[in-house]
């Protein structure tokens, strides 16, 4: 079975000549179904750029991104939109909820974009909120929620379309450590119970530590994945063994 996402020799540069800047300088990586992967590195290391390319929000300068084994370069804008809508979920540091809409309206946005009917949207939206223990907040306005609740709503929005992959960009960055760990628990529970692949960009060592695998970036390149020092709770000693990565020669570290 092909990897959910696979990238080969990914290069992304901005501008040209002296003013040019290379954000990613040749990255190869494979992410298997059901894996949880943390992309870590300092600011400017290229981790956000890598996530945007993986999430098909941006096109690489060179190199290839494959989804379920099929290359995405040849996809039309319409197909890319459909893939992002149907297969991906997004969680961001700033939540990006529409303040004056209700929690339910915020959660069903991906379904609305997909063209799902109103009754079906409501049913699925309420089911997701029920699962995340937010059902009683369904008709509250998003602006009236606490930070932790907002991020849980954002997670509900990310999973309402039953995605294959959730991309989380600093999901705990705006939360205190207590609410942050609640949000982490939810994300890893979704990963474990529903088999949703998790791609997390984070500075948070604790969050990164709970992932199956960490991809360390420095100056736009992958450095060798450090050995797991803190086993994540509840992971039952699953080793951070990058599957498929070997085939692509990614684990070799700095190239």
């Amino acid at each position, binding site marked *: 079975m092909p990897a959910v996402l696979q990238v080969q020799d990914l290069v992304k540069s901005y501008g040209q000549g002296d003013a040019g800047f290379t954000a990613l300088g040749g990255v190869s990586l494979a992410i298997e179904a059901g894996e949880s992967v943390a992309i870590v590195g300092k600011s400017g290391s290229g981790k956000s750029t890598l996530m945007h390319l993986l999430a098909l*929000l941006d096109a690489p300068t060179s190199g290839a991104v494959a989804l379920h084994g099929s290359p995405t370069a040849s996809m039309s*804008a319409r197909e890319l939109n459909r*893939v992002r*809508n149907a297969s991906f979920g*997004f969680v961001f540091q700033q939540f*990006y909820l529409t303040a004056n809409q209700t929690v339910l309206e915020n959660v069903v946005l991906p379904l*609305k974009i997909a*063209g799902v009917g109103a009754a079906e949207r409501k049913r699925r939206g309420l089911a997701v909120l029920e699962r995340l223990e937010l059902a009683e907040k369904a008709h509250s306005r998003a602006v009236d929620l606490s930070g932790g609740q907002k991020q849980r709503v954002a997670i509900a929005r990310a999973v309402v379309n039953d995605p294959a992959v959730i991309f989380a960009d600093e999901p705990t960055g705006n939360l205190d450590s207590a609410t942050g760990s609640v949000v982490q628990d939810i994300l890893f529970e979704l990963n474990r119970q529903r088999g949703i692949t998790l791609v997390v960009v984070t500075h948070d060592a604790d969050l990164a530590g709970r992932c199956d695998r960490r991809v360390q970036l420095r100056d736009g390149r992958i450095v060798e994945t450090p050995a797991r020092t803190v086993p994540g709770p509840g992971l039952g000693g699953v080793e951070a063994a990058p599957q498929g990565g070997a085939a692509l020669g990614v684990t070799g570290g700095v190239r």
Partner: protein
Amino acid sequence: MRGRDLVGSAVTSTLRGRIRTVLTVVAVFIGACALTLTSGMGTGVNRYIDVTVATFGDASALYVQKSQPLIELSAGSGPQKYDPDSTQIATGFGVSFVGLSDQDVATIEGIDGVGEVAPVYNVVPTYLQAGQERFQLTLGIPVDSEGVQMASGSVAAEGADELAIPDTWVTDLGFGSPQEAVGATVQIVMTNKAGQQQEFDARVSGVTQASLAGVSRNPIPSTSFNERLYAYQVSGSPEEIPASYIMARAIMDDAGRAGPIQAQLEEAGMIGLTVEDQLGMFRTVINAIIWILNACAIIALIAAGLGIVNTLLMSVQERTREIGLMKAMGMSGPKVFGLFSLEAVFIGLLGAVLGAATGVAAGTYLTQVLAEGFLAGLPGLSLFTFQAPRIALIVAAVLTIAFAAGTIPAVRAARKDPITALRHE
């Protein structure tokens, strides 16, 4: 996103804008309301003119006069040759008219396409006596009887010494109401060429209503009465005075062929005007005024359109991250464009519908108030008349302007790059 959801989202986010939306809607409202009113006024006034023309019954009537009836004063143009055959009609200001002679009437009758010709004598009564009061009197032209609307009674009957008086005269002549005036007798006093005065009893046959055509501002006698008065006016002279008519009414066989007949009249030194011609000038002026007002309303709408551009640009700016999120979640550029243009159209729709409805309501109310007050002198004039197709056209025009205004912000929203938009602070 489905079409219905797109509309729903656009409506929700428009209403979310509150004050900004309200102000923009007000701007559109003002333009749409003004345009509705001016267009209603155009329809109302033009319809009134049409009805006035129609009540003359005879669109085929040509009113013929000498083409240069005023005998020119010598100043500037030198003396005119004396023509023993011409007949002069004194007006009392030292200015005289040349009237139509029997020969002219024969000429008119001789023109191909002209049927009956009715010449009208110019009768200048000395005064009108009603009870003990005396009034100046200029008589109306008997042929105008056909075009007047009656407040009471009927027009002066042929063969009878009758007179129809304007409704504005009723009180001054000492009558309590138009109904009371009908059947009463007044006296017309004439002076003949020998300087003798004679009193003629005239029965008031009816009371006329004022109209835009202005034919009913003077009392109108019957043709036979007018002729009897004229006969006395020219009597008492040692020599016979040749017949002189202030005008003649010629009935055309075919109203559509007025052009050639008018051309022949002009060749013969006369001018013939249809009722339509006489009111045409008035119509031209009214239409010019209405177009100026329309232009003002359209300028107001264009300004409102710029208001829509501004409102939506601010909205797009504020909602940059929301746009970024929707695009990240797979919403296509065209759908984002649709979302924002629908907002513009919705603002336009609110303003247009409210504006048109208010315009119709205000116009209808004003018409009623004015018909009883300021415009009471013109019965039958419904100043604002609204036609559904016209209103629909105005609403459609406003929506078009709103959509056009919305394209600028909508294109900007549609082109946003999701990553940049999500990073927007």
